[in-house]
């Protein structure tokens, strides 16, 4: 009962002096806003990286054989980097080795790609496009869905047809008013008949798919390839996650045998999984989540000092009121409690404003960028607890001072 009384009184004080209250709460508001906004964005990135990014970059339950590592985790020294740079190019015959080694794989896809300055249709053009020559399984392993028309088929591959499935951005740019299907796009001095359009991916890495043109590998190999029979990626998709490691082991063994590597020699190729990316991300993530509350604490300490100052002022402004309350029967602990409640309510209002502003900022990021902003309840609880903690801590001394006032002196004060 008395707590509500205290909270009501505190809210009255805050409302009566809105501007002063706001300034005294700025520290707490900024601290909590920062905490919530950053945590929300980091958690959003987390979800994004785990669920969308890693999956769409590498496919689910998929590993990829590449010439050299694209993502490095931890420290990689110069020598290792130079060693990988000497790795031989992957070729079509490596694909055969992989296919033979992993007969149980769901799909084995291979691809090569090349970037071009622009793709054209009539007078419309799209700058910076990537042409991917992919085996028919490529779309399946990548999980790319067709929005319009059809995807590549084994027949396209066998016959080396000059057909293409294009990304949504290319479709929008080149064919703003007409349907792209059966029209011919020009890229790299070649013309390809559009047979389908990929579903729009949007987001961060949307550019990769949305600005890509997929053509049959055989066609790519015959027309646009820089190196005959050269392959950039061999992707292996397995049925369940448990099959990942054993399949990777046999593929690694088969490739080593094929290349005649001795046991002491390192691989001259690299097996890449989404775990490479996830572990790199996890390192960053862990550091961020540990560091943020620490950084926020600095701001909260400042906020706490301001609140303590305001509360000390409030105690001296209201000395007479304290004297009156004591004369009417308030005990020391009643006064102590009143001022503690007031300080906590003050900082609580600060943290609620901070949470609101923080969530607002995160929502803005959510709308304006591909990052999905998410927050889990424990962080909100942490924000509230930190805010409350600041209030209680910075309220203790002023409240103690108030409770110790002599009622006679206090009543006599102006």
């Amino acid at each position, binding site marked *: *009962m*008395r707590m509500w*009384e205290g909270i009501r009184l505190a809210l*009255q004080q805050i409302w*009566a002096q809105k501007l002063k209250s706001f300034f005294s709460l700025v520290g707490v508001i900024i601290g909590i806003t920062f905490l919530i906004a950053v945590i929300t964005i980091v958690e959003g990135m987390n979800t994004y990286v785990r669920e969308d990014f890693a999956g769409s970059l590498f496919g689910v339950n998929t590993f990829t054989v590449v010439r050299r590592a694209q993502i490095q985790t931890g420290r990689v020294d110069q020598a290792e980097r130079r060693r990988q740079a000497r790795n031989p190019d992957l070729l079509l015959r490596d694909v055969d080795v992989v296919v033979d080694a992993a007969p149980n794989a769901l799909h084995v896809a291979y691809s090569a790609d090349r970037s071009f300055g622009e793709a054209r249709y009539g007078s419309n053009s799209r700058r910076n496009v990537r042409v991917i020559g992919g085996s028919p399984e490529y779309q399946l392993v990548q999980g790319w869905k067709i929005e319009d028309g059809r995807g590549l088929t084994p027949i396209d591959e066998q016959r080396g047809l000059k057909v293409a499935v294009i990304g949504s951005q290319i479709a929008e740019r080149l064919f703003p008013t007409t349907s792209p299907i059966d029209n011919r796009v020009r890229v790299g001095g070649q013309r390809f008949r559009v047979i389908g359009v990929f579903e729009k991916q949007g987001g961060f890495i949307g550019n990769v798919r949305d600005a890509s043109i997929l053509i049959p590998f055989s066609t790519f190999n015959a027309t646009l390839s820089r190196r005959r029979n050269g392959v950039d990626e061999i992707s292996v998709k397995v049925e369940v996650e448990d099959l990942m490691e054993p399949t990777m082991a046999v593929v690694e063994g088969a490739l080593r045998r094929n290349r005649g590597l001795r046991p002491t020699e390192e691989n001259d190729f690299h097996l890449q999984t989404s775990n490479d990316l996830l572990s790199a991300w996890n390192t960053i993530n862990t550091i961020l989540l540990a560091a943020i509350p620490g950084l926020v604490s600095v701001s909260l300490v400042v906020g706490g000092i301001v609140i303590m100052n305001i509360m000390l002022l409030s105690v001296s402004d209201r000395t*007479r*009121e304290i004297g*009156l*309350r*004591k*004369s*009417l*029967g*308030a*005990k*020391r*602990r*009643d006064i102590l409690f009143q001022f503690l409640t007031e300080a906590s309510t003050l900082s609580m209002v600060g943290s609620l404003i901070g949470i609101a502003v923080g969530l607002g900022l995160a929502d803005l990021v959510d709308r304006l960028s591909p990052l999905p902003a998410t927050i889990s309840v424990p962080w909100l609880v942490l924000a509230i607890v930190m805010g409350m903690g600041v209030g209680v801590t910075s309220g203790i001394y002023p409240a103690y001072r108030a409770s110790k006032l002599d*009622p*006679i002196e206090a*009543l006599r004060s102006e």
Partner: protein
Amino acid sequence: MQNTNEAIITTHNLHKHYVMGAETVRALNGVDVEIRRNEYVAIMGPSGSGKSTLMNLIGCLDSPTEGEYVLNGQEVQVLDDDELARIRNREIGFVFQTFNLLPRATALHNVELPLIYAGVRSKERQRRASAALERVALGDRMDHKPNELSGGQRQRVAIARALVNDPSIVLADEPTGNLDSSTSEEIMDVFESLHAAGQTIIMVTHEFDIASHAQRVITLVDGKIASHNAEIPTFVGAAGHDFHIP
């Protein structure tokens, strides 16, 4: 019914000394006072006579250096801070010269304050506070804040607050000091009707015409009782006429 002749306040050899630097100021120097239930007593004295100190002791805002003080059968000089707070809450209703109302709270809430510290529940508090306001004829002003009330009305809110917890004594310190003479009369009428209803009232004042409303006038000089039943001069000067010791 309680015996109306029973002493509600008894002090014996009450001393209060303040140490100021090297000097000891003897604000009260052996005061024996007895006030009976349902008495209406005025305490008078020039400034520095110790009447404020005596009022603080009677009001349990302070403890004596020496001597005994029995309030409503309870020895007060042995109590600690929290017990004194409880006595102030239950036994004493203060009325101050400057009203001392919370400016942002309504009349009703101001009157509720002592009940909050008595731990009375919200519903019951409101019922009792509004009854107290009715008693001082402010039943229609309950939701007004102090700055929406006249001086006399403010003091009546303060009186309602003093009465709300049904105290043994109402202790009024210059209750008309901030009021004009016609409003003063209005407040004195309130005190008289309270007294008529059985309330014990102790009033500190330096004005004869205010003191003349009391049944008995105790005068203090130099920290000692000068008279337990002083004569009020028959001529009554303008309000605020100072008390002089011949």
